[in-house]
């Protein structure tokens, strides 16, 4: 179903329009209904009425959702490319859980409290977990096959999550704060939370967006990529490093959000074909639209309360995951 150039340009425009639409909905809709006039004046900076204040709070929240979604979509596409594994996802390969555990340990035992430390700790945790999952999957015959990676990722994620719980449980002082963060959400995001993660997001984004040709070669398999003059180890380290930066920074800001990185690249490949020069930018845009849309949905379904976006993406992502496995394309990417 690979489209011609005009078709893929049209698809890209459609995705961009979707991003714009979800962003507008995210500013306009919420647990509290706000009149259009208030939305417009809030966008111009007025925060006099309750409605205007609600809208003003939705602006950084929307920006955070767009950034986190783009980062997770991009990271998922890169991880699927690096591992040649259609089931690769920052949530499934333990990367987000590793970042979460590192942050929880940092808060509980080392009293870290600056944003820069959160991000650094999260990136370290994400990288460490990714490496452990890969090494376990690479044990035994056949190397790190897609299935072994998924199993190893599930096992390590389970271990990391229970360890995280074990760290948090005896600490009533941090429990409430950490628990709500662990669900994964963008509610309550402020501009002062967004600024510190920007450098890591930009750096990770640039690294991943600069590697589509490497990923295109890795997709042909290690041997064919080597035959075409690619240094496979360098290509993998670059792309995985970029993805881990993105995941670590996103987890530090929003908590571990799953399934965006899994679902988005699949959708993009189905529409645009397997060329990473198109899949990567499309995954960033689609991820932004999906996470922002999921956040809006979470605000609307439980009015006047809210459901965190991490729960909404899991509800969407679970069935999609099963569909991908049943489609039987797990073996080759």
């Amino acid at each position: 179903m690979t489209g011609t150039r005009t078709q893929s340009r049209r698809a890209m425009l459609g995705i961009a329009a979707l991003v714009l639409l979800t962003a507008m909905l995210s500013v306009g809709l919420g647990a509290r209904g706000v009149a259009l006039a208030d939305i417009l004046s809030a966008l111009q900076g007025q925060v006099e009425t309750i409605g205007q204040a609600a809208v003003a709070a939705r602006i950084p929240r929307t920006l955070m959702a767009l950034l986190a979604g783009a980062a997770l979509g991009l990271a998922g596409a890169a991880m699927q490319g690096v591992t040649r594994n259609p089931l690769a996802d920052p949530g499934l390969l333990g990367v987000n859980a590793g970042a979460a555990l590192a942050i929880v340990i940092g808060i509980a035992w080392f009293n870290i409290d600056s944003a820069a430390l959160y991000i650094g700790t999260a990136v370290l945790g994400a990288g460490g977990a990714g490496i452990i999952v890969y090494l376990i999957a690479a044990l035994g015959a056949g190397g790190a096959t897609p299935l072994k990676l998924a199993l190893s990722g599930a096992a390590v994620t389970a271990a990391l999550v229970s360890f995280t719980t074990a760290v948090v449980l005896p600490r009533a002082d941090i429990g409430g704060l950490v628990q709500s963060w662990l669900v994964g959400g963008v509610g309550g995001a402020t501009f002062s939370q967004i600024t510190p993660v920007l450098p890591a997001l930009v750096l990770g984004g640039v690294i991943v967006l600069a590697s589509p040709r490497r990923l295109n070669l890795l997709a042909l398999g290690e041997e064919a990529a080597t035959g075409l003059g690619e240094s496979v180890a360098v290509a993998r380290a670059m792309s995985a490093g970029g993805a881990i930066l993105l995941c670590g920074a996103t987890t530090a800001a929003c908590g571990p959000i799953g399934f965006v990185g899994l679902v988005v690249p699949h959708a993009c490949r189905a529409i645009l074909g397997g060329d990473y020069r198109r899949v990567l930018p499309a995954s960033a845009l689609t991820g932004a639209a999906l996470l922002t849309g999921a956040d809006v949905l979470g605000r609307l379904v439980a009015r006047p309360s809210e459901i965190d976006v991490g729960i909404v993406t899991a509800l969407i992502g679970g069935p999609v995951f099963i569909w991908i496995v049943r489609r039987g394309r797990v073996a080759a990417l």
Partner: protein
Amino acid sequence: MSVESLSIRALAAGYGGARILKGIDLEIAPGQITAIVGANACGKSTLLRAMSRLLTPESGEVLLDGTSVHATAPRALARRLGLLPQAPQAPEAITVLDLVSRGRHPHQGIFGGWSAQDEAAVAEALELTGTDALAEREVAALSGGQRQRVWIAMALAQQTEVLLLDEPTTYLDVNHQVEVLDLLTDLNRRRGTTIVMVLHELNLAARYADRLVAMRAGEIHAEGAPGEVLTETMLRAVFDLEARVMDDPVSGRPLMIPLGRHGLRANEREEARR
């Protein structure tokens, strides 16, 4: 296209301490087709991998026109030495044109501008392999034989003087095996590309290769023209196989027929008993 020399000197290599190649010396005939044959686990695929960057030798060297293959920059090497792995897997949703175009990677700059030269090389590769009509199809939807021609087209688009292939006919029906070997011979005759391939099927190897290399237990047992290498003595030593070798009535090359224990004519049974 210039014809490059490929020499293997005292090459020893293996995996994780297990030494598989035990000091190989071999001159690959430039501009000719060389087939490496031997029983399973004799080291023939390992030799092919060690001739490229897939496997770093423990000692010895592989020289392409006098410079070591393993000391050459990866992309520079990929412009001169092509490699087609055994049973390569195409990624999901990739078209024939896209896959063949990826063969141009080593010729492109860092920013990957697509030149008229790239365009021409891809068009020629599609034409030579008869896959131009398939250009917009998805690779996954093709038959095994078509798919292998597409991978060969990708290697052709790379425009190297030397092409290494690991069992290019595995998993193919016999008609497609012949088709692929005919295609490689066309390429060799038209462009002078030096071809080195590992082949399982001895009669096809003898039929299509200019030179045969027979390997046994990590060493070269015999090397030369098919008529010199494919003999009853060699089959006994390398494959532990009793067989007759006769002239192929179609090509005049040697043709191997295993004796086995069953299905023999009466006179052959007599002979086998003696």
